[in-house]
């Protein structure tokens, strides 16, 4: 019964992992002969200023976006954790963007931020951030924040559902007792809820950080890496090197470096997850 799934995992994971290592040690164009070049691809990555700036941007995006995503997920979970009438509707609405598909959502937002036309551009005009004539994509920080906003809209539902399930398993009496003792809502959240949901918190953190470090769709479709290639993410760059310039060996080396960074990040967090 295990055979089919083991087989497909072998062909699409086991063998690719070995091949990935081998390719990273070769000069590997799409067509033509490959040649063994040892660690030259890694040496290039170490000195490749473009790769460094791409990694810096990916980390910057992750560091800014993650806390905002987690906090909004937590606040939404506070709204929908109640078991009252009508709450199911809110739950479904907040979760809805998760299921619409990353690419379709990104294309929709391409129109929503069009100068002078899109809803978001008009809102930003009222706030005074855009003038309705120039594209906000010409501005680095505006682009980043818009993409963060879209990423939250698109993904916060998952965070919310996981945290909500954890919050619902906290017994109601604990809160009642705290209320009697005069604890305010902020105290109840930080002293009771948070310590009791650390495991789910760690899981959500793991999913969010991984998702952000691998961000691709939003930037590829919405900013196209601009302005002046300042919003190219690690996966975006890997894609460009391997499948636009067809330097697949170098792409493989970049992939391994990305995987190592991610593996370290997940290992640390899995440890926290297991501790409980």
């Amino acid at each position, binding site marked *: 019964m295990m055979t089919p799934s083991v087989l497909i995992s072998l062909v*699409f994971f086991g063998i690719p992992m070995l091949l990935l290592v081998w390719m990273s040690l070769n000069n590997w164009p799409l067509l033509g002969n490959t040649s063994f070049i040892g660690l030259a691809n890694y040496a290039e990555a170490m000195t490749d200023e473009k790769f460094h700036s791409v990694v810096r941007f990916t980390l910057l995006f992750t560091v800014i976006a993650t806390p905002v995503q987690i906090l909004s997920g937590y606040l939404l979970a506070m709204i929908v954790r109640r078991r009252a009438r009508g709450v199911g509707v809110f739950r479904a609405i907040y979760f809805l963007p998760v299921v619409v598909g990353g*690419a379709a959502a990104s294309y929709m937002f391409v129109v929503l931020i069009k100068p002078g036309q899109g809803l978001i551009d008009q809102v930003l005009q009222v706030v005074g951030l855009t003038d309705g004539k120039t594209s906000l994509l010409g501005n680095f920080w505006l682009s980043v924040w818009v993409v963060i906003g879209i990423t939250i809209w698109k993904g916060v539902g998952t965070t919310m559902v996981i945290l909500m399930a954890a919050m619902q398993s906290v017994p109601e009496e604990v809160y009642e007792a705290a209320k009697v003792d005069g604890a305010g809502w902020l105290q109840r959240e930080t002293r009771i809820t948070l310590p009791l949901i650390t495991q789910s918190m760690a899981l959500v953190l793991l999913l969010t950080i991984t998702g952000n470090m691998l961000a691709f769709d939003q930037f590829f479709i919405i900013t196209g890496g601009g302005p002046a290639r300042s919003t190219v993410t690690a996966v975006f760059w890997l894609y460009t090197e391997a499948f636009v310039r067809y330097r697949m060996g170098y792409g493989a080396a970049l992939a391994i470096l990305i995987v190592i960074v991610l593996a370290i990040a997940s290992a640390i967090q899995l440890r926290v997850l297991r501790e409980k």
Partner: protein
Amino acid sequence: MSTYTQVRNRLSDSRTRRLITEFGYYGVAVLVAGAFLAPLLWSVVRSFSDPLHGWAPTSRYYDELWTAGRGLGHYAANSLIVAVSTTVLTLLLSTLAGYALARTKFPGQNIVFAAMLLPFMVPYQGIMVPIYTIMAKLGLVNSLVGLVLIYTSFMMPFSIFLMRNSFLAIPGEMEEAAIMDGASMFQMLTRVFLPLVVPGLATVALYAFMYGWSDLLAALIMLNNDRNFTLPLALGGLQQGDYGAIDLGVLEAGAIVSMIPCIVLFLILQRYYIRGIAAGAIKL
């Protein structure tokens, strides 16, 4: 003041306060819901109105969709084939594997389970390069079959994990009763167990369908012939103006149309889904 009025005042006082908090709660919840729905609703309204003629109602953009490139129907059909095949294959493989891992004993079981979860640590973006090379060797580049196999393999760790947990949650007595009745292993799986893991199946199905329907990166890499394009690639064509002049209204209409199947599926499977993801996440 009599004790009676004091008590009554305090009662109505706390009732008013509760009413105010309730009002505040639903007010906030509705406002947030509005913020989540606004981009979608605005886009739908915008896609049915013509900015050149004072936002008069029009179905022009949707009409044009059917003639852009090979017509949206063509790309939607490709996406549907890929998404449905991915879903069926994923359900089949993960049910068998989850059942074997949870309900049978075989040598090396723990090692197999751990090995099946290994891809959790390595995102598919990391192994796209060698997978492309392998698919090229197998002659599966630019084929929807190749794409289905890739998506199914990416779905494996999560689905097997979820199905194993679903099967584990079923009490042992169910099994014993079935054995007493002389059920075969296959009968036991289909008659006894499957009805009990419907939430897990629904979650896996929704994820697999959504993934097959909306993935951009793997399709971008694997498909280079317009005939095989899935919806996300076709929308990219609309954005780039590959199918004629760039028309934002048409792009928007295309994005909306491609959202509909997943939204419908979500609304149907919703009650299983939220339970399923919560159960899967908590038992990690």
